[in-house]
């Protein structure tokens, strides 16, 4: 499934142990992106951290590909200081009930990033210790970074006449 060029890369070779976890991959502008099956994300991450020296989670974010399906793409930026290497993992999630396992158990750094995505995109992270809104007020309706959320906010939109 992966191109030969990708299969040359050490990380990709190492990940062959996880059959079916890596759905796709891409080496673009010198950046490696691996497309991971959402249900396998935690074990892949744990393996990358312990086995492949990706000890740092640089950040997690999400992209909303509305109206495409699967709509949400959760993006993990991993970094290995020993190997001086960066790796991007992405997971595609359905728009109806977007949810994915939390990687908090792998990196504590995931805490706030996952809360931020929950807050701004409405993606839930299962097993997250404290999944509450972080940037928006607690009683906020909607998720601002979704593409169907108007830039002015609902309050000032003219949708309802």
């Amino acid at each position, binding site marked *: 499934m992966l191109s030969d060029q990708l299969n040359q890369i050490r990380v990709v070779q190492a990940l062959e142990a996880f059959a079916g976890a890596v759905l796709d991959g891409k080496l*673009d*502008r010198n*950046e490696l*992106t691996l497309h991971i099956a959402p249900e396998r994300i935690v074990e892949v991450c744990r393996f990358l951290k312990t086995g492949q020296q990706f*000890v*740092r*989670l*640089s*950040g997690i*974010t999400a*992209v*909303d590909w509305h109206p495409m399906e699967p709509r949400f793409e959760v*993006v993990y*930026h991993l970094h290995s*200081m020993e190997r*001086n290497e*960066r790796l*991007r993992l992405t997971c595609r999630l359905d728009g109806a009930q977007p949810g994915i396992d939390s990687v908090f158990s792998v*990196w*504590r*750094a995931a*805490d*706030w990033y996952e809360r931020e995505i929950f807050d*701004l995109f409405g993606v839930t992270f299962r097993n997250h210790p404290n999944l509450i*809104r*972080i*940037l*928006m*007020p607690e009683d906020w309706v909607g998720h*601002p*970074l979704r*593409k169907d*959320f108007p*830039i002015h906010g609902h309050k000032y939109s003219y949708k309802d006449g």
Partner: protein
Amino acid sequence: MNDTLATAATGSKRTMTLNMGPQHPSTHGVLRILLELDGETIVKAAPDIGFLHTGIEKECEVKTYQQVVPLTDRVDYLANLSNNLCYVLAVEKLLGMEIPQRAQWMRVMLTELTRISSHLVWLGTHAIDIGAMSVFLYCFREREDLLRIFEMFSGQRMMTSYFRVGGLALDAPRGWDKVVRKFINEFPSKVDQYENLLTANPIWMQRTKGVGHVALEDLIDIGVTGPMIRAAGMPWDIRKSEPYSSYEQFQFHVPTQKESDVFARYLVRVAEMRESANIVVQALDGMPEGPWQADAPHVVLPEREKMKTQMESLIYHFKIITEGFSVPAGQVYQAIEAPRGELGYYVVSDGTAKPYRVHMRTPSFGNLMAMPHMLEGRLLADSIASLGSLDFVLGDVDR
């Protein structure tokens, strides 16, 4: 009077909840920390952020690529040029653009000056938090000079927006090198002044040594970057490990300390100021001549003169102004070493003239996560020193 202090008199533990912020002199902005105190010892610290959330990431999606640059100024308003640089580098990476040497060196020089200015604000506020009032004003004296330099270059003191996709906004003004050289020649002696007041001061050492310690493994696990992690003994600096904007052509050290306490962070940042000054001197000495903008007419605005005389330039100018330039589809993550740590811009392009998604991996956001670890079990007075050593900017946290 009995319930005034919201005391939880359950069993033998009596704790008091103290709401530090959002309006508090030491939270450096609108940060709210819910502290649970047992006497003066912090049992639990829960930061509450988002008071400065302005939705910059959302706003980026409706601007053209060039229009995003002024927004990045507002993210970390103390290190605006670093934000400019990071965004610009990310877009240039998407475009696959080559930037002329002079622009790259100019960028390096100005971001290093930004680092100095940002560290000066940190040092001043950190010192005044611990009670050393005068250092604050000394630091702001030098920062004032720096802001004047920024104004000279860009016309703005803080919201510079000086770096543009494809180069700089303007060529360097006349006489810039004299002004910068004058500042940078005097600057090391100014750092000596701060150090005279603080480094060997027994009270300063008592207040900062052994305070706010977090082990290196924890720091890495929590995602802390920048001077904080270097103060714990990890010599990791993106300028060295993943050089950008021709940093590989400069000689500099990465100062580190072992102790991972407030004092170590202080030493690291002060040493970084000196290193930055060193880099600026190198940039001044070896500043290459040449164009300050890339030769990419579809991205870079043409010169005024050309626009008025050449049809082609006029068309490009019109197109860039009205609809911007389209960027090939793809996604890039560009990380740079901002004053506070790893600043990363994740830019997704769908091939149009507006970024599809801009995510800012800001250092303050990642560093602030370490705060509960730093505060819990320590004294309330230590919280001030620890918070100061985190060096966060709330605009950077909330975006």
